[in-house]
């Protein structure tokens, strides 16, 4: 029995609404000159799940994540299969509306390892978010509507008291939450997280964990690099291990794995990340190739 069922906003997997795509790796490998970081691998990461990439330091987990996110040239293909509802709640005759709705829901987030900003850079939390999420050029005053949106966003990640703080003066946990706020504002449903809790104290780790669990509950697909086995055991739906140059499709931690490419009652739209870091996909309805640069 297929676990998926179409809804207005996405699909249901075992009573769990899915907004994010599944990720298909097709003979994916990564080489630096003569050195092959990992052997070709083919697997599918199911939609709406929390996948964790584990392995020793230097094994290539972060590189694998960057490949999946389209940030690193590689060999083989990567497909993001976004769930496209047949009954989308929109007038299906309006192809343009449907496409816009699809593009709106097909946002990707990337949370890198903790990185420091220059402490003297005169960019506040508010400046950073506004310049990230809206087109009005950074030296213009934001509209009231944007201010309200910003306040809501900041309170979601617990940074509402820090809107005028320079980004270089934020603590590690606050910096990571700022990155979450940026991605949340864009409505991302596919998340790539590269050890987002590294270097954070326990309280900050808890705050980040809550955000991640909320995203999972919202039906996003999350791929996260993590090194702590206990954490993986506790929270991962699925583990991918990078060991001695091999990418191993590990155990499914939180129940049986489902194949995202076999969605019943839905069209599956592909996005291929090729070696030149572009995304191209075949729209099966129009049978035309479209190319979107990352």
């Amino acid at each position, binding site marked *: 029995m297929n676990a998926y069922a179409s809804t207005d906003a996405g699909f249901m997997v075992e009573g769990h609404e899915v907004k994010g795509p599944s990720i298909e790796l097709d003979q994916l490998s990564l080489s630096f000159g003569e050195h092959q970081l990992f052997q070709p691998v083919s697997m599918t990461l199911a939609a709406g799940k929390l996948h964790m990439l584990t392995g020793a330091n230097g094994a290539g987990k972060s590189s694998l994540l*960057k490949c999946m*996110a*389209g*940030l690193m040239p590689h060999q083989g293909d990567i497909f993001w299969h976004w769930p496209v509802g047949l009954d989308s709640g929109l007038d299906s005759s309006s192809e343009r509306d449907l496409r816009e709705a699809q593009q709106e829901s097909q*946002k*990707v*987030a*990337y949370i*890198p390892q903790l*990185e420091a*900003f220059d402490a*003297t*850079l*005169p*960019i*506040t939390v*508010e*400046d*950073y978010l506004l*310049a*990230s*999420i*809206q*087109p*009005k*050029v*950074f*030296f*213009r*005053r934001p509209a009231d509507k944007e201010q309200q949106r910003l306040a809501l966003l900041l309170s979601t990640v617990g940074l509402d008291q820090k809107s*005028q703080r*320079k980004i270089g003066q934020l603590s590690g946990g606050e910096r990571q939450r700022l*990155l979450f706020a*940026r*991605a949340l504002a*864009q409505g*991302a449903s596919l998340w*790539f997280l590269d050890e987002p809790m590294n270097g954070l104290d326990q309280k900050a780790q808890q705050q980040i964990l809550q955000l991640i669990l909320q995203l999972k509950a919202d039906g996003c697909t999350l791929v996260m690099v993590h090194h702590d086995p206990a954490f993986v055991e506790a929270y991962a739906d699925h583990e991918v291990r990078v060991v001695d140059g091999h990418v191993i499709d590990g155990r499914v931690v939180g129940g049986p794995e489902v194949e995202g490419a076999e969605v019943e009652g839905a069209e599956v739209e592909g996005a291929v990340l090729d070696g030149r*870091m572009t995304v191209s996909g075949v729209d099966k309805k129009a049978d035309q190739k479209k190319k*979107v*640069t*990352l």
Partner: protein
Amino acid sequence: MSLQQLLADAVAAGWLPEVFQYPFVTYALIAAVMVGPLLGALGTLVVVKRLAFFSEAVGHGALTGVAVGILLGEPATQPVAALFGFCMSFALILHWVKSRTQVPYDALVGVFLAFAIALGAALLLYVAKKVNVHILENVLFGSILTVTPADLMLLGGISVISWVLIWRYGNQALMSALQPDLARVQGAGGRKTNVTLLDYGFVLLIALITVAAVKIIGAVLVGALLLIPATTARLISSNLRSFFIRTLMISTGCCVAGVVLPMALEIPIPSGAAIVLLASSVFLLVVLFRQLGWSQRLA
């Protein structure tokens, strides 16, 4: 009624100082008012992108561009095509090499800068046979005497192009400079972002500005004005908006004062040198004020 006639009438009526009866003064001031905000605006991005050394190098590369232009038969006072061609090639090749090597960026810029200056010095020997080398000083260090209406048209055109690009792509350029990988995946300014294209576009813009500002500031000193006002404003600003506005104010103020003061005080120094000396003085004063603990009030 022409602008010049209007000014002459204002001088005759005693509304403006006598010095405005000379067209070159008007032209120089118009150029200063256009070039100041432009260099300031781009300077904010130069500082965030840490391209200060790069913009200095492009300016210094202008020496070679000028020499090439004169050798190819362009007018000695206005070798615009060769200047733009060389600065653009210099900037693009440097940026292209940067994306394909592991050499640290500052070292790479240093190599290119040394090459450009050495080539320029070698070519100057031949240039000296064709024109009086002192003419070059105007191009390298700026001279208000040589600004013409044609220069103002060129500067105006480049200013419009630059402001449109800043208005449209400012947020994307800023966020790509700060976190390129994030901008690649998530976009910036609410839009999809092509970080590589933005990088090349910015580099081209710096080459274009160098050409636009050559008459008033001089090719060699343009880089300094891209850097100093923004670096100064950064010390006394608490957010992006104040950073941007203060950079523009410092940059424009120094450009106008650098044109007016040498005339008023009858000091025969190139306008570019005066502008950069003023900007550097403002920077040192701000540093001094900060040391004295007055920075909180400024910020």
